[in-house]
């Protein structure tokens, strides 16, 4: 049975393996060059103190391949679910070959078990190798990534470490289940894609933030967490726009970043400019010719805001939780996969 399963998978497996080899070769050729450019750059910037600028430039240079590889790792599980999972049983049902194989001396349960193990194993291995290669290749980029592209950010998180394997296993089991329920390949593929997409959107938006209780903390305002500060002509007070970044917590996944006024009240929702009661006609925040020329004026103004008691109130998952969250999410998907597999066995025993 293992031979038959392998024989049926061969074509798809060879195609996938070839694509992975191409990816691996490309990454292996470009990876070392990028890593050495990174280490030279770091050595240089540590000497002259321009590391933030180096990070920005370095990341900008490689942003396109960075995003491409991330997308590949994100899409691979969906492809596996669509092209390996959904047709696994429906192809047999549509060609009637299930009647051929079920009438050999093998029970349906064993038939399905072997198919799920062999093809599911191959799916997990493919996703694992792909993620491993990309995680290795993008290590310098992940260290210099701009806010929104750090390891903890939802899209990058899903394309690094061990979770892609769990996604692949889940997508595969989802495809097989959809196939067994719908019994036709194309509708099963559509169902698989729809459900997988929904799960992959719902998971980072509503579930992952709560896999571990997030940390709530307040931070002084500074150039790292303040995006802009200014006043429009028809308003009395200037407004502050905060960034999704925390001073001293590089790489943290910021779930919300709001401005708290001196009494500790939040005056504006996340991402909306919040008014600060500070004079713009006199004092540190008043625009002056000297201030425009350097950064000193902005720093002095922020210091004034801090003195008045304005703080950044942030809810976040610290960067150190990358691996704990990876393992917890892997476990959650593994449970979903097991549940779907159990459903498959139930179905195959019951259905004609």
């Amino acid at each position, binding site marked *: *049975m293992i031979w038959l399963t392998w024989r049926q998978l061969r074509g798809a497996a060879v195609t996938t393996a070839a694509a992975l080899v191409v990816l691996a070769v490309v990454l292996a050729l470009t990876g070392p060059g990028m890593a050495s450019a990174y280490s030279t750059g770091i050595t240089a910037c540590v000497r002259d103190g321009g590391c933030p600028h180096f990070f920005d430039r370095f990341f900008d240079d490689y942003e396109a391949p960075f995003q491409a590889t991330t997308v590949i790792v994100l899409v691979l599980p969906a492809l596996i679910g669509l092209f390996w999972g959904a047709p696994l049983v429906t192809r047999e049902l549509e*060609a*009637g*070959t299930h009647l051929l*194989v079920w*009438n050999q*001396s093998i029970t349906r349960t064993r038939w399905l078990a072997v198919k799920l193990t062999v093809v599911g194993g191959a799916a997990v291995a493919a996703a694992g190798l792909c993620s491993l290669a990309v995680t290795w290749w993008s290590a310098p980029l992940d260290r210099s990534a701009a806010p929104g592209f750090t390891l903890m950010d939802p899209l990058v998180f899903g394309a690094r470490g061990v979770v892609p394997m769990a996604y692949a296993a889940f997508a595969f089991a989802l495809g097989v289940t959809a196939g067994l329920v719908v019994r036709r390949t194309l509708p099963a593929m559509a169902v698989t894609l729809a459900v997988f997409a929904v799960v992959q959107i719902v998971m980072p938006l509503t579930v992952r933030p709560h896999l571990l209780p997030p940390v709530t903390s307040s931070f002084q305002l500074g150039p790292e967490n303040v995006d802009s500060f200014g006043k429009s002509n028809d308003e009395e007070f200037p407004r502050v726009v905060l960034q999704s970044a925390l001073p001293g917590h590089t790489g943290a996944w910021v779930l919300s970043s709001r401005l708290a006024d001196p009494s500790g009240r939040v005056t504006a929702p996340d991402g909306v400019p919040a008014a600060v009661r500070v004079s713009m006609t006199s004092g540190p925040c008043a625009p002056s010719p000297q201030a425009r020329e350097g950064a000193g004026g902005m720093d002095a103004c922020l210091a004034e805001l801090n003195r008045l008691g304005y703080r950044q109130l942030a809810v976040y998952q610290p960067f150190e939780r990358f691996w704990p969250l990876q393992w917890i999410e892997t476990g959650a998907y593994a449970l979903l996969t097991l549940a779907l597999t159990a459903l498959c066995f139930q179905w195959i025993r019951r259905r004609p």
Partner: protein
Amino acid sequence: MIRGLAGPVSEEPMTTVLRARGLARKYGRRWALRDCTLDIPGGHVVGLVGPNGAGKTTLLKLAGGQLPPTAGDITVLGGRPAGGAAQLARIGFVAQDTPVYAGLSVADHLRLGAGLNPRWDAALARERVERLGLDPAHRAGRLSGGQRAQLALTLGLAKRPELLILDEPVAALDPLARREFLQGLMEAVAEHEFSVVLSSHLVSDLERTCDYLIVLVDSRVQLAGQVDDLLATHHRLTGPRRDPDRLPAGQHVVSASHTDRQSTFVIRTEDPIHDPAWTVSRLTLEDLVLAYMEGPAPAKGRPVLEVRR
């Protein structure tokens, strides 16, 4: 209720390959098979005949264990169908339209059979493929309908089952391929002595090959018995018009048709027919089956309500 002969005609068979008691299967709200009580003795080639949709495939799938019954009991070779790999190994099943893996070669199919069946007869399979002139490297998807059916039959035979079930195996084949398929099947039966249950909606496919017949009409078993016994106990009577009720007690009307002056009956009886008014003629198997499919049809002009079941 079974009309005609229920079960084997006379003697208790030495082995029973299939035993059904009140077997029934429903799809949704439609009964595909009802009140099926059967004892099929071993050592026969059993023809299961009936119009399309009569429940033939359902009965065979129940026997093969691919379908659980809605009601009633079925045992095949003394075991419960699909009662595990050991039971599956004893029953061969060639499904309708003889499916094969289009992407796999003939040799792959033999390897598949060898890997999945404990009693696989590799020599038989190889020899059959050779004799059929099939190229082992040929993809099964490119085989003709007849060759594909032969490949599926080879898988079924090389499994060395005690009972081989074939669901409409020749329905899609041209007359030559049909003949070749049945020749191969009969030759294997002569050589390896296993029981066969073969379904068809055409009696002509079964006339030569089967020595036991089951007629299934409208999801019910109408007739079951050894072909020779069935032919010996059924007669066509033609004579002056007569009401069926006025026939002797031992003569059961299978079908009746009337004109103004003449009546034609197909009857079943164990006794000789003495009435000189009748012209008695023999029935072919096809006539016999058709008579059961028609049932005691009403004469022209009579209300259909009088159709008796």
